[in-house]
């Protein structure tokens, strides 16, 4: 019994799960109907579904960020990438009102699949740029991605011409607001990306390669892993997840705001990765943990909203969470506690 318990607590998913459960319990305490799920208009409806749906963009970006962080990198430009990709898709679809057969309908400027592919391609381009600077020129990741973070919102403003671009094309709203079999479409997208990633990192050697590059880049290069190419494509992938998230966000709010779309999203994504148990120093990474981390952040936000506290105070709570998680991850603190535990154990 004790053995299984210690095995459980040693699992990397233990602490993230405990945090999430505690948060959910707090939510239930303040709002007894928290877990209620009802069927309305043929789809599921309730707080939990709402949290899952709203956490989808963060979950996607955090998965990309997990891989980047696993290679000892960091990508602080994902928020800007979201703004750019959102601006591209909104500007391309746009939508205008035409009267067809006496009925008012909205048509898109360019076919929707083309617009989506274009937005993802632009996001990929952002990622290739980051990858080129980090893996090609050998810049520190935080500096290399800082460049796109600074310039990216300017580029997005350029695409939207300084305006908030509103989308009027109905089918596009399906991505962010639609339901398949009563479950939000965005969750299917998260599931597909997760499945692909799990398949690639657990069933092929890719996951091992990424971890080895994060643990010791020089040794992994000597053992024949093309570390450079790997790092390059990891940044590209991270930007693509930001692009997919941008599609969901733009579709959900039916507009693209170059100034505020994805603002501070990079910080939330990094926080989600850290909460999920992946060390910010690189190496071992936990995709499922990251997803739970993203859910923790969204549940926390939901709890703050439902408590009626001004949402701005959210930042103070997040700050406390950041400090707490880092302190738990800090080996120095663990040593301190261990020493203390042994000392009291010895005298007792």
């Amino acid at each position, binding site marked *: 019994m004790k053995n299984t318990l210690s095995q459980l607590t040693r699992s990397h998913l233990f602490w993230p799960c405990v945090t999430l459960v505690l948060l959910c319990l707090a939510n239930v305490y303040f709002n007894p109907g928290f877990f209620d799920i009802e069927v309305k208009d043929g789809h599921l409806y309730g707080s939990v579904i709402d949290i899952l749906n709203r956490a989808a963009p963060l979950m996607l970006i955090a998965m990309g960020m997990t891989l980047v962080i696993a290679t000892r990198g960091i990508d602080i430009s994902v928020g800007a990438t979201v703004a750019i990709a959102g601006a591209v898709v909104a500007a391309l679809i746009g939508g205008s009102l035409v009267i067809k057969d006496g009925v008012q309908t909205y048509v898109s400027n360019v076919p929707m699949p083309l617009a989506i592919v274009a937005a993802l391609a632009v996001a990929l381009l952002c990622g290739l740029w980051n990858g080129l600077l980090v893996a090609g020129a050998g810049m520190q990741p935080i500096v290399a991605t800082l460049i796109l973070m600074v*310039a990216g919102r300017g580029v997005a403003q350029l695409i939207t011409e300084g305006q908030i671009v509103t989308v009027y094309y109905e089918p596009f709203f399906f991505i962010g607001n639609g339901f398949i079999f009563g479950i939000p479409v965005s969750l299917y997208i998260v599931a597909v990306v997760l499945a692909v990633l799990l398949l690639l990192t657990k069933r092929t050697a890719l996951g091992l390669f990424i971890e080895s590059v994060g643990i010791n880049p020089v040794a992994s290069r000597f053992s024949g892993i093309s570390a450079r190419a790997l790092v390059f494509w990891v940044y590209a992938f991270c930007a693509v997840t930001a692009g997919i998230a941008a599609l969901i966000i733009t579709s959900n709010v039916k507009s693209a705001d170059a100034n505020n779309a994805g603002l501070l999203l990079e910080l939330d994504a990094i926080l989600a990765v850290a909460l999920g148990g992946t060390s910010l120093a690189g190496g071992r990474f936990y995709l499922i943990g990251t997803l739970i981390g993203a859910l923790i952040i969204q549940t926390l936000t939901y709890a703050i909203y439902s408590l009626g506290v001004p949402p701005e105070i959210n930042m103070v709570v997040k700050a406390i969470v950041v400090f707490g998680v880092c302190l738990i991850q800090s080996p120095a603190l663990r040593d301190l506690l261990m020493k203390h535990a042994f000392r009291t154990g010895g005298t007792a």
Partner: protein
Amino acid sequence: MNLAGTINTRTLPLLVTSVLFALLFGFGSVSYDNFFSVQVFLNLLIDNAFVAVVAIGMTFVILTGGIDLSVGSIVALTTMVTAALVEQQHWSIWVVVPLVLAIGSLFGLLMGSLIHYFRMQPFIVTLGGMFLARGLCYVISIDSIAITDPTYAAISEYRISFGEEAFLSVSAIISLLTLALAIFLAQYTRFGRTVYAIGGNERSALLMGLPVGRTKILVYTLSGFCSALGGVLVTFYMLSGYGLHALGLEMDAIAAAVIGGTLLTGGVGYVAGSLVGVMILGVIQSLIAFDGSLSSWWTRIAIGVLLCAFCLMQRLLEQGGSNLGAIFSYWKKPAEGSAPAR
């Protein structure tokens, strides 16, 4: 003095930055009427006084190889605390200013302690500090608070004249004094030399018996102090306290330091370079304002492009030393140390 001898990898970025500033200012003077005047130049100092002060603190942090993302939020928190105490509690400016400077320093001290004692990454600790300081602004008030105190208004409007048509504000004088102090601190004190030593190689600095831990904590304290001082200058400049003041200032400060020739890996750079970096950001803004047809978001793109160019230059200098031939042979060389350390 042998000019060629003084140009090396350490001074080249600063030299390039200064030449670039002169070129940009010259370009403005040729292109637009009324651009070439002493006052336009002094206005760069007046409008960017708080950025300069914050960038000076950031330079010290970067010189040790760290980074401080909390500076913008500490500026905002300072304006908010000042506005709340002056307007709602009617405290005197002579009490409030030392108090907010102490708060900023304490904030830096706490972050520095976390970084040193718990070996946490500066990036993530100061990120937490950034959230905390911004959040605390909103705890005070989510709205902007105007400062109507007569002393603040008087300081804000006071102009120190030079000759006929040139003047400086109090804020600009304070930022120049801060710069002078910072140069003294960096170049002529034990503290400054320890900062450079830590940035060069922390382990060696430790083995040499330098007070690495104390200096690291002090550097973040200094950055917190500079941010709070920057916040005080913002209250003089804007006459209000607001949680959204100085949004993204940390990126401007980092960009100014990098453009000013400070290596982000630490150990190389000059505090004075950061002032030139800030002035370059200012002159870009002025150029875009004088042009009138370009939108303000071009500023962000221009800063991004400059940042990229200077980072690439830094990389090439690191790889090739001062030998120009080595710079060009870089791309032919096989990859060395491919995956970068953060």
